[in-house]
């Protein structure tokens, strides 16, 4: 009986692990992702909006700068000007399922060597929910 239970658990574990690591809508386990509450507790954070320009122009986090990959070369200089090594950087895109904020955060770490870059969990959608 015990063996059968173990066998069942192992059988269930395989698809669960596959889904956890490869499903496109898997939950985030990353430690570089933060909640709105944590991000707001940082008074001097540099907020970056990774959404397309039209979404940014419609509404954005107060003080945020636009930095999306479509206009990367044109937008990056303003971000470099605003950044300093003591500031945390918070990048967001539209929602939990969007990838743009993670891509922008990766490039800032890899190409510009920013060390304190965080992705906002839930993105703009989560921000809006807490500010209604």
């Amino acid at each position, binding site marked *: *009986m015990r063996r*059968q*239970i173990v066998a*069942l658990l192992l*059988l269930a574990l395989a698809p669960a692990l596959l889904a956890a690591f*490869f*499903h*496109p809508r898997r939950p985030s386990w990353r430690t570089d992702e933060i909640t709105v509450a944590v991000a707001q507790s940082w008074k001097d954070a540099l907020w970056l909006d990774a959404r*397309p320009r039209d979404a940014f122009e419609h509404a954005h986090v107060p003080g945020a700068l636009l930095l999306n*990959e*479509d*206009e*990367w*070369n044109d937008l990056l*200089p303003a971000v*470099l*000007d605003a950044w*300093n*090594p003591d500031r945390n950087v918070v990048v967001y895109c539209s929602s939990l*399922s*969007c*990838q*743009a904020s993670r*891509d922008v955060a*990766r*490039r800032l770490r*890899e*190409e*510009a*060597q920013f060390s304190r870059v965080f992705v906002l969990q839930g993105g703009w959608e989560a921000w809006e929910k807490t500010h209604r």
Partner: protein
Amino acid sequence: MIFRVLIAVLGLAASAQAQLKFQSVEQFVAVSPGEGRAISHFNFTNAGNYHVKILGTDTTCGCTAAVTDKRVYAPGEKGQIEVTFKTANRHGMYGEPIAVKTDDPQVKEINLHLRILVRDALELQPMFLYWAAGEAPGEKKIHVSVTDGFDVKGLNASASDANATVRVETLKPGREYNIAVTPHGHSFKCAVNIQPEYLQPGSNAPKEFVARLRVY
């Protein structure tokens, strides 16, 4: 008893197989930003015994578009989903999930994944140097590697501000270089312009790359 339940569950799982059989649900493509876009094709066959309609495709980025060659596929019919990824200004490795929604009662959604590597003629690591407030203004280096497929015979580099001096070190001719940058002042920023010399004049590859530096 437990094993009977297990067999029933596995049987159900086996019967819930998609009628649309893809040759591969994951693909990889490498491109340079100058190409503008990366295109990949996901080929499939309707392996079932009834028609399947593709209701739509979902992507997570405005940079990716997925289109089908038609909507309804008869049993045995082959089809294709073309995925286009916009490369302009992008750099590095990207993973784009594509959800294909169908009216197949067995499997209503099939997940595809396209991985794209966008590499330019030169890779600058890093492309931004800074000297923190109070840090000694010593020399720092930008490592430049030439991507395979680009024929470069040398590099020229210059700073846009006289407060910084720039020197090119050749590590492996045509393959790897260092650009050594030394600031001579405080509280300034400038650009470092890097021009590759291509073996073939008139190459379509980018003519100039820009790194940036800032002294706090």
